[in-house]
């Protein structure tokens, strides 16, 4: 069996956090229904030419069914209310205030389903002047303090990454919260409302630097790839174009192994590098020597030589490196799924390995409204005639290809 068999989830999500939540709940075995429609598209469907052929959307929306229903019509809201009555969990990450305008905020929902578990995730969280501000991951890293530290000391300003961090951490937190809340409801019968601020997820990932401020009165500055505790500790240029390998020498034993593995060049015997204190004091020079060695070797070679000697080292991987990574292949960490429009594409695989469960499944992301008919018929008991009429009225959306 799977942990969340028979658990029903409605996802009103958009972008990263909401959809990724549903994806993982689906992996755990829940039946996840995504509410969407042409007049309220998940914005991730809109960043390319075809709403059904967007990589990021099709990754984060796996393992769920799409109910194409317009929330702008009363009949559409009526249909969703029926579904809400028989669901266990609702998750939404629209801009603050949107769910209340639609009549699907927690207060409205719990009147028709008192034991509902309802999760909201906004950029800044409910309760405060920024409750209703729109937000995206790359904005949240800036507004949480995290981005101010995500730089090299000599960068003119921090740029961090173009990835939507902390979206995919926020969604995982919510999965954990939802299952814990389910377990509490199993024991007590009580549902509840969980309200997350994504800025707080990001801030929590750099908590020790907030303590540096609250306890030492100091606003920390970026350290780039260096550590105040260990050296060598860096990202070194390797053979080829924009190729890099990280190396961290954390103990005296690893330092000895490192020197030997790189062929004990004369500089390694210099007394200024003989202990961690010396290496930290002379880190600029040390890093130049290390890079002399790495720059004539391919990154995978650097990693393999050092790891064989017991020194932590890792390639700065691109997608192609990950796809060819022997450990990821061994773990089944890359899977191919056949999507009706996108065709056969590679995605990250299932990373949950629980000995007492049957194998977790992954199904491709749905086309917009792909499961409208089956949900209306099987879950809501509607007739074909009714479905056709509502489709003609623009209440339901059924795709032409399915």
């Amino acid at each position, binding site marked *: 069996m799977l942990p*969340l068999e028979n658990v029903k989830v409605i996802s009103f999500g958009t972008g990263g956090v909401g959809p990724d939540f549903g994806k993982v709940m689906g992996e755990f075995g829940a039946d996840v229904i995504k509410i969407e429609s042409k007049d309220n598209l998940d914005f991730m469907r809109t960043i390319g030419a075809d709403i059904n052929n967007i*990589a990021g959307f099709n990754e*984060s929306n796996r393992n769920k069914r799409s109910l194409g229903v317009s929330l702008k019509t009363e009949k559409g809201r009526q249909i969703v209310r029926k579904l809400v009555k028989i669901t266990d969990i609702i998750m939404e990450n629209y801009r603050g205030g949107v769910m209340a305008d639609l009549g699907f905020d927690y207060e409205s929902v719990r009147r028709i389903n008192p034991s509902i578990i309802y999760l909201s995730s906004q950029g800044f*969280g409910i309760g*405060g*002047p*920024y409750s209703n*501000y729109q*937000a995206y991951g*790359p904005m949240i890293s800036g*507004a949480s*303090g995290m*981005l101010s530290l995500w730089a*090299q000391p000599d960068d003119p*300003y921090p*740029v961090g*990454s*173009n*990835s939507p*961090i902390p979206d*995919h*951490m*926020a969604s*995982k*937190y919510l999965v954990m*919260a939802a299952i814990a809340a389910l377990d*509490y409801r199993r024991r007590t019968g009580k549902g*509840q409302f969980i*309200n*997350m*601020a994504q*800025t707080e997820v990001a801030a929590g990932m750099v908590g*020790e630097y*907030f*303590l540096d401020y609250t306890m*030492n009165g100091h606003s920390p500055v970026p*350290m780039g*790839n260096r550590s*105040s*505790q260990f050296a060598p500790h860096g*990202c070194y240029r390797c053979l080829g174009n924009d190729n*890099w390998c*990280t*190396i*961290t020498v*954390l103990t005296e034993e690893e330092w000895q192994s490192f020197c030997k593995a790189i062929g004990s060049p004369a500089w390694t015997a210099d007394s200024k590098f003989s202990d961690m204190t010396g290496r930290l004091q002379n880190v600029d020079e040390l890093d130049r020597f290390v890079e002399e060695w790495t720059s004539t070797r391919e990154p995978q070679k650097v990693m393999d030589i050092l790891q064989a000697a*017991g020194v*932590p080292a*890792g390639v700065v991987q691109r*997608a*192609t*490196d990950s796809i060819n990574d022997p*450990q990821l292949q061994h*773990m089944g960490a890359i899977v191919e799924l056949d999507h009706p429009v996108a065709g056969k594409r590679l*995605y*990250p695989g299932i990373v*949950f390995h*629980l*000995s*007492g469960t049957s194998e977790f499944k992954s199904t491709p992301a749905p086309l917009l409204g792909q499961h409208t008919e089956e949900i209306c018929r099987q879950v809501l008991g509607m007739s074909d005639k009714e479905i056709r009429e509502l489709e003609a009225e623009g209440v339901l959306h059924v795709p032409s290809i399915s």
Partner: protein
Amino acid sequence: MPDVKDGALTGYRILDFADSKGAFCTKVLADIGAEVIKIEPPGGDPGRNAPPFLNYTPHPEKSLYFIYRNTGKLGITLNIESEQGKEIFHQLLKTADVLVDNSHPDYLPKMGFDYTNLKEINPQLIVDSITEFGQTGPYRDYKGSNLVDFALSGTMITSGYPGKVPCMMPGSPAYDAASIHASMSIVAALYMRATTGEGQFIDTSVHETARMGLYPWIIPNYHYAVNPNMPPPTPEVRMGAAIYPVYPCKDGFIRVIALTPRQWDALVRVLGNPDVLQMPEWRDFMYRIGNAEDLYHLMFEYTQKYTMVELFEAGSREGVPIAPILKMSDFYNSPHTRARQFFTEVSHPVAGKAYYPGPPYKWTETPARIGRPAPCLGEHNEQIYCGELGFSKGELADLKKARVL
């Protein structure tokens, strides 16, 4: 006594046999009510040596890294490499619902605690082993670290300036990602146990999970761009500030998330409709990425007239997300952070009283909160060993002398 409500996981006991790499996993479970007992070797968790420190003076009770990532836990010492230590561990395992371990896959088996033994001791026990690369496979014995695991996650190649060295993300992102995956797996296994009555073994690999917690889109983004009749897609590169441009303002920097033409129009309004930004080409996202450098020079003259917060608030009014790049102090003092009471006062017996970042969510029925400070080394030995396992204070002293505790 204030009326302290239960957390969602109140009643579950977790043995935290992880060092600082897995500390976040049990911290977030303690936030929502689980009883977490951190088990350290007599010499202490190596995380106690991790900077920064209170007053920048290394001390085992003053690592800010350690005291942040171990809030909510009780702390005991135990040397499971000693015979008596093994017996005590055995007794503790019987009382627990969950064991979280992050040693090498061979370590616990070598100590006599492989999963078969653990299951015999306590069939309901859920065991999560967080390892760098997993229980099996060609990299099983490879070593990781904060930086190495982040590099392997696929996110680092996108971090930093084009042409410069890729940049580490602050904190310990790969370990946090692995930890949150372990936390999810554990609550799922607990929920399932109510039906099956049985525990299970969970294999959590930092290498696999860091990608999922940080940037899972990187593989599909790449693979969707592969076209059989075309040259391979450009490899991922650091975009620096091209996609989400950063501009200086009066008191710091802002990051602008203008993706659609409507958001661009809103940005132009925020800056007072300057003529130089009216050229229709600028409304096109791809054009802006291609001409980021030129745009920067046009923009910063206007952004510099305002403060971070002025632009942030005006952006929200007009309909374009603008992020202030806040420093720690700015976020701490932000009126919104204060209104949500995100920072919580915690009183640590050695490091003193201070405000800590709290859990990132509010629960209406079972509050999430920091229930206690991080434990000092062996702080709860007496409570657990004498109070629960029936040792006398004299025996406790002997065990300590024998380096069992």
